[in-house]
């Protein structure tokens, strides 16, 4: 029996440590991992918890991230509660197995401390790895601060392991900004947290000798489409279950999570759409503009997959100007958020003027000044009733102005 860990009601923790406490409280059975910056601390601390008797589960040292996720798949199919942590190149190396995990409907929890992808090599935070994993069939939750990392990591098990869902879950947190910044984190006592997560309901265990089963069979043109459609359908339907878990968490522990998080969007003329810690910085900027009587807001998906099209369509139905901020190099296209938000709004009665900003790559600082400049652009768009610049711009980039798509003014 694992030892109880004495926690203060409020601890000063960074996102990595907060997440690891969630993994410990969920009493993960198997955690195979190959540590990589900025998620290393999760792996290090979990192995420490194992060694010190705070977890009954196993920490497995593997030879690579590909092996880490492969071990997750095997352990999960056997019927264990499974988690791992990675970032950037590590995520890139496990990407093949991410598709295996979701296709086999294995509720693995992956803690992803978001980091840029090489080359050029960079250990700092952006959303390149989050974007890389976005089509892999995993549920993706996004944290804005250490408190969310802890809460979402706990809830991830409840969400993914539900028998109607049975899908793996990524919990994203911004590399260094969230993963390494110590903040006040309200902790749930061990017994309550463990009770909330509950026991894993084992489905079709590989180790059940009375019902031998094959996972991930070969399906060609007469079967593959049906399997993929089933997976897509169940991923979309998981949204209602995610909502239920968020509601139950709020009832039990008094912290509210929504499918999309909003700050002063209701009456806003101009809204920034972003992901992660930028939501918090943008909220400060929104408050500054509101003091000047300018009606602005910020909105962010808490759940990136399944993408909340309906929630965005409803929240932004009266908004006049929208800027979608993508923290990942789009490499020859508009950013993902611009695509998704445009798609979400295109069938509304009114569609706003929508622009796209690429920002913060490789950990480039996201300042109040930069975000204010976005709202200044949006104000110009609002006055003109149309885009006053090209669709896509780079925010905080040196050199000549870099802008693409559509005619100027």
């Amino acid at each position: 029996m694992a030892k109880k860990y004495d926690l203060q009601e409020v601890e000063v923790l960074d996102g990595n440590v907060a997440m690891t406490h969630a993994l410990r409280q969920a009493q993960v059975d198997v955690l195979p991992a190959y540590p990589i910056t900025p998620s290393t601390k999760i792996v290090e601390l979990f192995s420490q918890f194992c060694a010190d008797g705070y977890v009954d589960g196993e920490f497995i040292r593997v030879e690579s991230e590909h092996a880490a996720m492969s071990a997750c798949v095997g352990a999960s199919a056997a019927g264990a509660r499974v988690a791992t942590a990675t970032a950037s190149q590590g995520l890139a190396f496990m990407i093949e197995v991410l598709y295996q995990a979701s296709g086999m409907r294995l509720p693995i929890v992956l803690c992803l401390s978001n980091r840029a992808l090489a080359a050029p090599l960079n250990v700092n935070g952006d959303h390149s790895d989050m974007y890389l994993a976005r089509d892999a069939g995993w549920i993706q939750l996004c944290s804005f601060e250490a408190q969310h990392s802890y809460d979402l990591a706990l809830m991830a098990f409840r969400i993914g392991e539900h028998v109607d869902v049975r899908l793996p879950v990524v919990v994203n947190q911004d590399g260094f900004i969230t993963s390494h910044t110590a903040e006040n984190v309200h902790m749930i006592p061990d017994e309550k947290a463990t009770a909330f997560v509950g026991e894993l309901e084992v489905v079709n265990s590989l180790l059940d000798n009375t019902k031998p089963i094959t996972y991930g069979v070969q399906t060609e043109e007469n079967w593959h489409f049906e399997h993929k459609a089933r997976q897509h359908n169940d991923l979309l339907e998981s949204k209602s279950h995610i909502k239920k878990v968020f509601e139950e968490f709020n009832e039990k522990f008094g912290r509210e999570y929504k499918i999309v998080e909003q700050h002063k969007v209701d009456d806003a003329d101009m809204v920034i759409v972003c992901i992660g810690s930028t939501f918090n910085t943008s909220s400060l900027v929104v408050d500054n503009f509101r003091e000047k009587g300018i009606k602005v807001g910020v909105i962010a998906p808490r759940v990136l997959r399944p993408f909340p099209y309906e929630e965005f369509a409803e929240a932004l139905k009266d908004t006049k100007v929208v800027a979608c901020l993508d923290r990942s190099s789009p490499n020859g296209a508009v950013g993902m958020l611009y695509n998704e938000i445009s798609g979400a709004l295109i069938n509304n009665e009114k569609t706003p003027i929508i622009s796209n900003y690429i920002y913060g790559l490789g950990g480039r600082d996201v300042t109040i000044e930069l975000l204010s400049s976005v709202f200044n652009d949006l104000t110009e768009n609002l006055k003109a009733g149309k885009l006053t610049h090209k669709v896509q711009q780079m925010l905080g980039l040196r050199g000549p102005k870099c802008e693409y798509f559509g005619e100027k003014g």
Partner: protein
Amino acid sequence: MEKLLGWDEILPGACLFAFGEEIKENVAQTPRDSRKYSDNNSHQAHVSDWRVTKPVFNVDHCINCQFCWVYCPDMSIISKDKKMIEVDYDHCKGCGICAEVCPTPVKSLMMVEEFKSEEETLAAWPEKKKKEAK
């Protein structure tokens, strides 16, 4: 003929059960043909269409060492009571491992072109070298 199911009818996870019902007995002790395989078990499937060369078994040379049975990656060596019986040509892919590991002085398993009949192969089997008289 397999029944093609709709997307809402399939088992999530691309999972297939080997047997149609819960197994209570020791399957290994149950004769192959009496096992209650599920309809979609590959036991019923022919998965050897692309074989180019096939192993032919010659019982006259076999010492029942079971090497071929152990090494076959597709469980296509049919063996009963530790006696080699035959090759399962519905599942054998023709990899040749059985013939490679066969230890008898003249092989008991030989790889031949798919189109050659068993009879003509056996008729042309190499002779055992007779010990020379001293």
